[in-house]
C-alpha cells in the first residue's frame, strides 16, 4: 500500500512522469511558436537539455540578497506542484487520493509557484526584480480570484446547491451528464479559464512581470542562475501539466475506454492540444502594460466567471 503511494507520488502520475511530460510540452510550445513565425525552432528535447545544463552551472548569489530565501524559495513552488499532482485525479488514468475537499487544496496550491517567484525575486535585492514582484502581486490578486469563482461555479452546479469540493465527484457527474465544455452555461467560464491560464503561465498578453526584456529584463528571475533557475523551469513544466489536468476535470473529463494505456494516450493527446492552443495564443498576442493588464483581468475574466456563477445559481434554483 505504502509503496504504491510512493510510486504515485514520485514516478507515475506525479513526479517523474509529469515532469518529463511538462518539459516536453514547454519545448513543444517553443516549436509551435517558431513554426507560426516561419522558423524551424528548437528540437523537441531542447528544454530537457536546458534544465540539465542549468544544473551544471555556477550558482551566483548577489551580495545584498537574503541568501537562504534566495536559494530555497524555488522549492516552495516545486514541492507544491509535486504534492498536488499526487492529490489530483487524472480522468480515466489515476484515481487521485479521494480526499473530499481536494478542490480547496487545489485553490491554495495553485498560488504557490507565484509565491515562490515573489519570495525569490523579493530576496534578490535587484530593482528589476522588485518591480516585477510588485506587478506579479497585482496580477495574482485578480487571477486567483477568477480561479476561485470558476471553481465555486463548478462545485455548486455539481452539488445542485451545496458546493461539492471533491474533484472525483465533479468528474463522475460530468461522465454521467455530459461534459461542461458543451454546456452553454459554462462557456463564459471556459473563456475566463483561458485568460486565467495565460495570466498564471505569464504568456502574452500577460508577459508583464517576466520575459519582458523591454522594461524589466527577466523580471523576478533576473538574479537567479543555475539550480534555482532550473527548479523554476521544472515548476513551470509541472504547472502546465497541472493546468491541463484541471481544465480536463472542470470541463472535459471524458475517458474513452476502461483501458489504462489508451486513456493515458488520450490524456497526453488532450494535453498536447491544450498546449498547442496556448502556443497559438502566445504567437498571435502582443503584450499589455501593467495597468492595461490589471484592468483587463479585473473586468473581463472576472465578469465572465461571475456570469457563469449567476447562471449556475439560477439553474440550480430551477429558474432556467
Amino acid at each position, binding site marked *: 500500500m505504502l509503496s504504491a503511494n510512493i510510486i504515485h507520488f514520485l514516478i507515475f502520475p506525479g513526479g517523474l512522469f509529469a515532469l518529463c511530460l511538462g518539459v516536453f510540452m514547454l519545448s513543444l510550445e*517553443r516549436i509551435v511558436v*517558431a513554426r507560426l*513565425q*516561419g*522558423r*524551424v*525552432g*528548437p*528540437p523537441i528535447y*531542447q528544454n530537457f*537539455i*536546458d534544465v*540539465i*545544463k542549468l544544473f*551544471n*552551472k*555556477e550558482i*551566483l548569489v548577489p551580495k545584498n540578497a537574503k541568501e537562504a530565501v534566495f536559494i530555497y524559495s524555488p522549492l516552495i513552488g516545486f514541492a507544491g506542484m509535486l504534492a498536488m499532482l499526487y492529490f489530483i485525479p487524472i480522468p480515466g488514468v489515476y484515481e487521485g487520493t479521494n480526499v473530499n475537499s481536494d478542490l480547496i487544496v487545489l485553490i491554495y496550491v495553485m498560488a504557490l509557484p507565484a509565491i515562490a517567484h515573489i519570495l525569490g525575486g523579493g530576496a534578490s535585492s535587484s530593482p528589476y526584480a522588485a518591480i516585477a514582484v510588485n506587478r506579479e502581486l497585482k496580477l495574482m490578486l485578480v487571477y486567483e480570484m477568477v480561479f476561485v469563482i470558476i471553481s465555486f461555479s463548478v462545485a455548486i452546479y455539481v452539488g445542485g446547491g451545496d458546493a461539492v469540493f471533491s474533484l472525483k465527484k465533479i468528474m463522475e457527474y460530468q461522465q454521467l451528464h455530459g461534459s461542461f465544455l458543451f454546456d452553454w452555461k459554462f462557456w463564459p467560464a471556459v473563456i475566463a479559464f483561458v485568460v486565467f491560464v495565460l495570466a498564471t503561465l505569464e504568456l502574452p498578453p500577460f508577459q508583464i512581470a517576466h*520575459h*519582458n*526584456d523591454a522594461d*524589466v*529584463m*527577466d*523580471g523576478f*528571475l*533576473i*538574479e*537567479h*542562475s*543555475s539550480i534555482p*533557475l532550473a527548479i523554476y523551469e521544472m515548476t513551470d513544466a509541472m504547472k502546465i501539466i497541472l493546468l491541463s489536468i484541471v481544465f480536463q476535470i472542470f470541463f472535459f473529463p471524458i475517458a474513452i475506454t476502461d483501458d489504462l494505456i489508451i486513456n493515458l494516450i488520450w490524456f497526453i493527446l488532450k494535453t498536447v492540444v491544450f498546449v498547442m492552443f496556448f502556443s497559438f495564443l502566445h504567437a498571435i498576442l502582443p503584450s499589455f502594460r501593467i495597468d492595461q493588464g490589471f484592468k483587463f483581468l479585473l473586468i473581463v475574466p472576472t465578469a465572465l466567471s461571475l456570469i457563469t456563477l449567476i447562471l449556475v445559481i439560477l439553474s440550480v434554483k430551477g429558474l432556467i
Partner: protein
Amino acid sequence: MSIITRSPFLFRINTGSCNGCDVELATTAMIPRYDVERLGCRYTGSPKHADILLVTGPITARSKPYLLEVLDELPNPFVVVAVGTCPTSCGIFRDSYSIEGPLERYVKVDVNVPGCPPRPQAIIDGVAKALEIWKEKIRNQK
C-alpha cells in the same frame, strides 16, 4: 557532457551602437525567417543566465561601466562575440572623443562577426562558431 553544449543562452548588450547591428541581431537573426533557436539558443534577459555574450557598438564612455558590470556578472565559462565592425575597431566612430573601445581592451574576444551591419547569416555563423569555442572551454575546465 557534450549534450549540455547544445543549450546556449544568449545575452546581448548594446554599447552605443547605431542600432543597425541591433536590428539585424535582435529582430532578424532571431525572430522570423533566420533562426538561431534551431541551434538551441535562447535570448535571456539577464547576464547571469547567459553563456554567450553578444556585443554591439563601439563602447561609449557612458556604456563602459555597464559593459564591465555585465562582464563581471557572467558565470564561467562564457564566450564573447563582437557583432559588427564597431566593437572590433570602433568603425566609423573611431577617434571620437567619447569612444572607449575597442572591446579587446576589456575582455578577450572569441569571435568577430565583420560587417556594418553584418548579414543575419553571418551572425548565425558567428554564434555557431561561438558554440564550438564554448564546447572547447567546457572541456578544458573539466
